[in-house]
């Protein structure tokens, strides 16, 4: 469907797309840098209480305002950015660690093994995963590492399908046959020859996984089931802002803007990357 849109809009939109790519890279860069150094530059610590300024709107001393107990929202939003982005990276990594070998082995081995492995993916695909993550959190306590792992365990499914598809297209290639005839065993072929040749789609998909993870994490934290006080994330801040929306809307608006911007940038980048990949797709291995 994306290709359909692309075909029709691409010729005259090329310059525009490049601009949106540049804008998203710049914005993401700013957000990440701000998340890293912002809290260090500020006069406030995330748990500091400004007794003179409780629940106050944006001002010079507190550019994003303060929350109900007088904590600086700029610093807290940046700390929240750290949490949300770190979770996104770790969970994406987890999904790569599960999904890539799964798809590569299924595609390479083929036959029965492939059928069983992909059927498992199909069955898991039908599960309401966010609810299962919440169930896990309920059962095993609100451990952030568990949250990472559980989120990673959701997002590997798409990745496994994509990697399998790509593997199918290169498994008959001559260089793979050659290494097989030289006596390389399955693990070696998958690790040394297949995975390096499917990194393009993997990277594209990983870029699209990042915003999905951020979204899922903020969703769970919004419900009060994810990241817990005193630590914070965008979901937690947005939940606090929602509770006080009538008296102090800035508590919702600033973290909301940051979340929306980040999601939009990641998504735009992922889309552009996959457009770009479609252009150069005709790989030498398509026999």
């Amino acid at each position, binding site marked *: 469907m994306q290709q359909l849109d692309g075909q029709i809009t691409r010729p005259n939109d090329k310059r525009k797309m490049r601009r949106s790519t540049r804008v998203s890279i710049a914005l993401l860069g700013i957000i990440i840098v701000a998340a890293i150094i912002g809290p260090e530059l500020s006069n406030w610590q995330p748990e500091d209480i400004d007794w003179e300024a409780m629940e106050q709107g944006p001002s010079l001393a507190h550019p994003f305002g303060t929350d109900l107990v007088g904590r600086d929202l700029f610093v807290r939003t940046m700390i929240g950015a750290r949490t949300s982005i770190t979770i996104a990276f770790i969970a994406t990594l987890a999904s790569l660690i599960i999904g890539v070998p799964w798809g590569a082995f299924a595609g390479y081995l083929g036959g029965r093994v492939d059928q069983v492995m992909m059927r498992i993916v199909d069955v898991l695909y039908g599960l309401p995963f966010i609810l299962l993550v919440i169930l896990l959190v309920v059962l095993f306590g609100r451990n952030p590492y568990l949250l990472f792992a559980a989120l990673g365990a959701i997002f590997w499914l798409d990745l496994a399908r994509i990697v399998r598809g790509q593997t199918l297209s290169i498994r008959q290639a001559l260089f793979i046959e050659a290494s097989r005839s030289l006596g390389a065993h399955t693990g070696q072929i998958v690790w040394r020859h297949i995975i390096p040749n499917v990194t393009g789609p993997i990277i594209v998909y990983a870029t699209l996984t990042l915003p999905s993870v951020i979204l899922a994490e903020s969703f769970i934290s919004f419900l009060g089931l994810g990241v817990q006080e005193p630590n914070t994330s965008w979901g937690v801040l947005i939940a606090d802002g*929602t509770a006080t929306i009538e008296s102090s809307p800035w508590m919702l608006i600033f973290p909301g803007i940051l979340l929306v911007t980040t999601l939009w940038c990641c998504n735009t980048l992922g889309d552009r990357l996959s457009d770009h990949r479609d252009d150069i797709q005709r790989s030498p291995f398509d026999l």
Partner: protein
Amino acid sequence: MKPKISSRYLLARFAFMLVTLLTIITLVFGLVRLAPGGPFDGERRLPPDIEANLRAAYHLDEPIYQQYARYMGGLLQGDLGPSFRQKDFDVNELISAGLPISAGLGFAALLTALLIGVGIGIAAGFHQGTFADRLIMAANNLNIALPTIVVAPLMVLVFSVLLRWFPAGGSDSIWHFILPTIALALPYSAAIARLTRAGIIATKLEPHVKAAMAKGLSQSRLISRHILPMALLPVVSFLGPAAATLLTGSVVVEQVFDLPGIGRYFVQGALNRDYTLVMGVVVVYSAAIVTFNFIVDLAYAGLDPRIRLSH
């Protein structure tokens, strides 16, 4: 003429649905039993004999396979078991209290999303480059970049607090459901509009449409009989996974707009560690999703004359 959907395919698809459901239930059951600490570990330590009595009352003293059999047996009769926290209620009562609200909200949102999405999609697909067309391109990323957790509270702020057009929360009248329905439907209508537009643009060029046009069919008949059924296929297959995320989205919407649906019970149950309640909600949601996917698959075959489902 052969039937469109062979009974063998139907059976295989149905079996797959049951396997998925069984997997979910077993997984959920297993997870709950693996959890550290019993359901009665509260702030206050219970005297051992009372705890033993409680465990016996909830059949937690039986071996695990027997508990599993008991739970499955109960499920077959539509019994989700007692709530571990709300002593006077069983899970069935809690869920059936919330179900009408959640189901109504979900269906209304899906319908709204379809109406808005298909409407805009048609307008854009047939008039490329117009306002509707540009609107869709602009709303391209709406479904992922504007999450419900941001949009729903903002809607409360703008339409309830500032403009006072709609009540902010509760479920007393139909007015209370308008904002939640729109909040839930918005991201899906953007995706549906995009799919419809792409489908129409692709179908317009198909040979069968040209043939129908050459025969001199009227514009409206051409659109309704030859273009739309084909163009809407991607929308239909989108509805399956969409229903799943719609249900999770409704958890947030119910929270923000203070609607006493299943989602609220789910969050409450999760915060109180009410295992059986959470388990029951996951089972009910999963059953809804799996059934919906099954129906979507069959509808897909019904729409596309080229698809003949035999396995």
